């Protein structure tokens, strides 16, 4: 036991770096960004700037929680952008047609869960690769949405519908959603049997089966929960402006996937945390705002984002390679 004591333990700091490496990298990037932008233009911290940025981007963080579950479970979903658009439209339509506000909020969440449960079942039980199913769903949802709305915007929702514009202690509701859901899910993923099962199934489905888990059910569960978070994200998206556009930001699904991956969720499944994906979503928001305060033309936003994504990915690969090299010796 004495030997175990000396060999087995390492410092808490090194363990923190090992288990939350990518999360710390993203956090570091946010801090560096704050320092640089803040020193160039102190107004960056002024007024409600930061609060507004975080609030406007919170729906991406919420969607990325669900996406992280799906990717950790060993799958991917390229249809979430269209799904959010469809669910937002459902919410708006119900609200305009005079249904009680809790119906307008609740139905899209249920629909999101139902659709993604079906997607999960097709993947788990019919054994179609997730990228194929969700590629198909992307077409179906996108086409369905545009043919239904005909490209018109939804307006005239009742005032109580706009949950994303509510404030508590001066802080907009979306930030509460983002923070509370992230913390709850981080705890659940760490401490619940089913949360760990998602890691197990994503890491090694055969071993999961041999451990008495049911990989198919876990997969359906991950997708169903992803549908739930897509529903919440859709509500935040639908209620942040006075109108609901019939289209979502282009490549929204890719933004959400990118947030998960930059946050440290391995695209191969089995590792990552929702804290990372939320931090990454926050980082994206900071970058877009920072460009404005640095007087960079908005048209360069995407190029800068792309470069940053690339840099983060390469840094992550370098870190993992060092990790592997260390493990081998």
């Amino acid at each position: 036991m004495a030997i175990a004591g000396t060999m087995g333990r390492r410092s808490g700091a090194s363990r923190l770096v090992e288990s939350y490496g990518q999360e710390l990298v993203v956090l570091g990037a946010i801090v560096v960004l704050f320092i640089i932008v803040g020193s160039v233009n102190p107004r960056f911290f002024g007024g409600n700037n930061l609060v507004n940025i975080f609030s406007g981007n919170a729906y991406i963080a919420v969607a990325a929680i669900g996406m992280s579950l799906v990717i950790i479970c060993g799958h991917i979903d390229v249809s979430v952008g269209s799904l959010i658009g469809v669910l937002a439209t459902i919410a708006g339509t119900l609200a305009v047609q005079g249904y009680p506000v809790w119906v307008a909020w609740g139905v899209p969440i249920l629909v999101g869960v139902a659709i993604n449960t079906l997607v999960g079942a097709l993947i788990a039980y019919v054994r179609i690769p997730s990228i194929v199913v969700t590629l198909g769903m992307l077409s179906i949802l996108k086409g369905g949405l545009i043919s239904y709305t005909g490209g018109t915007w939804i307006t005239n929702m009742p005032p109580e519908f706009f949950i994303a514009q509510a404030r508590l202690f001066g802080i907009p509701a979306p930030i509460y959603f983002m923070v509370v859901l992230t913390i709850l899910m981080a705890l659940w993923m760490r401490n619940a049997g089913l949360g760990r099962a998602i890691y197990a199934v994503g890491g090694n489905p055969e071993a999961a089966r041999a451990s008495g888990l049911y990989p198919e059910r876990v997969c359906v569960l991950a997708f169903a929960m992803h549908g739930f978070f897509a529903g919440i994200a859709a509500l935040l998206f639908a209620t942040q402006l006075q109108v609901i556009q019939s289209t979502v930001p282009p490549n929204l699904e890719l933004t959400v996937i990118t947030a998960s991956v930059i946050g440290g969720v391995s695209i191969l499944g089995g590792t990552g945390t929702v804290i990372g994906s939320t931090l990454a979503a926050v980082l994206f928001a900071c970058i877009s705002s920072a460009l404005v305060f640095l007087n960079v033309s908005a048209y360069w936003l995407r190029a800068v984002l792309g470069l940053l994504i690339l840099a983060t990915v390469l840094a992550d690969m370098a870190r993992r390679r060092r990790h592997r090299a260390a493990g081998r010796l």
Partner: protein
Amino acid sequence: MTPLVELGGISKSFASVRVLQDISFDVRAGEVHALLGENGAGKSTLIKIMGGVHRADAGEMRVNGEVVHFASPRAAAASGIAVVHQELLLFPDLSVAENIFMGHAPRTGWGALDWPKMRARARDLLDRLQSHHIDVDARVGSLSVANRQRVEIARALSQDARVLIMDEPTASLVEEDVQQLLAIVRMLRDKGVGIVYVSHKLPEIFALADRVTVLRDGARVGTAPIGELDERRLVSMMVGRPIDQLFPKQETTIGAPLLELRKLGFGSVVRDVSLTLHAGEILGIAGLIGSGRTELALAIFGITPATTGEILIDGKPVSIDSPQQARDLGIAYVPEDRGVQGLVRSQSIAENISLSVLKSLATGLLIDHRKEEKLARESIAKFGIRARGPRQIVRQLSGGNQQKVVLAKWLATEPRILIMDEPTRGIDVGAKSEIHALMSALAARGLGVLMISSELPEVLGMSDRVLVMKNGTLVAEFDRDKATAEAVGAAMTLANASDEAA
């Protein structure tokens, strides 16, 4: 005494192919019951029925005298039956403690995982296996194969297993780890656990087993106490015919030097290796896993090119930076991991064999399919590959026949230097001796063979000379007549042997 587990009249078919027929088998408390048979004899299926993965079509299974029907591995575990899988079904990204308790972790009052308790119990289980050095918080992916296996055994114990099924547990372990594993198995037996032990390695069976059951073609050939059997008898029960010679080494004349290494090195894992391989010679390299044997082969073959030193072929210095260059210089490498490195298992026999000689099969840039087919047919005949034809998918072949496809692929390049890394790992007795005969015949035709193996009998039985590698460098050399198990084994493990090189 009632057996812990008792199977009677078990039969099982997959898609109208009968895999098991009327098998009876039992395990008693405190015994090691070895299960033997060639690949395809039905051992795996029998294990899977006991472990709750498959259900038998006919027959019954009793646990402690009561009839059971397992619907899932979970049900089998609940009845006290645990399996240590050959391929080690673990989660590389999760911690040791979590691997041990996945699916049955201790919970706190309100249903969350109880991490402190899980870690403490994991520590306790590993200590019981004399594995004090394994950190319960380490990622399993960072552990050695032997340590991963201990994690899997700890996992079985965590479920209070009274029957432990071990499927070829020593297949990828080196001698030192094998001995420690055998000690663990004996300790568990002495505590009253019933152990079903599957292995191809007869010395282990004789060292460990109390009783032996042999399966052949899905039927039980017999069950007997180990004292009533000898090696020859066991082998003939398994293959259905007597095997005259386990290592059919032909006497050959050793020719001129083919391959010379001068102070070859790769990073810190291969250091200052100098050796000469002659035409017609089988040069065996023994050593523990991690001693740098495979890394040496990878450096010679250009997968990870050597960082220091020289390689000479026919006395002329050559540079090898890629497998293509190595191939063009007449070097072939039959790799350690057949499924991952050796074969594209989703492709056909013909496609696999032609992979290393695509250029010579092509007219211009296009592949000549008739030539390809002809090469495959010739190879199937020459190597005795049991297959339906050149278009059969490699995945469907047995391990021995897959290994013959790898060999055929590399001999199609007409190499002069053949490196074989663990040439018979996981291959049954019959196919093993065929591969050995082939190796011997190739050397007799003037090829130089560099053979890396963890099985000491194979190294001693097949090699003209034996080199021993340790900590990345060569520490000893033995001629065929001086290479005894004791001498080579000592050189592999003893600490002082490597000091001179460092």
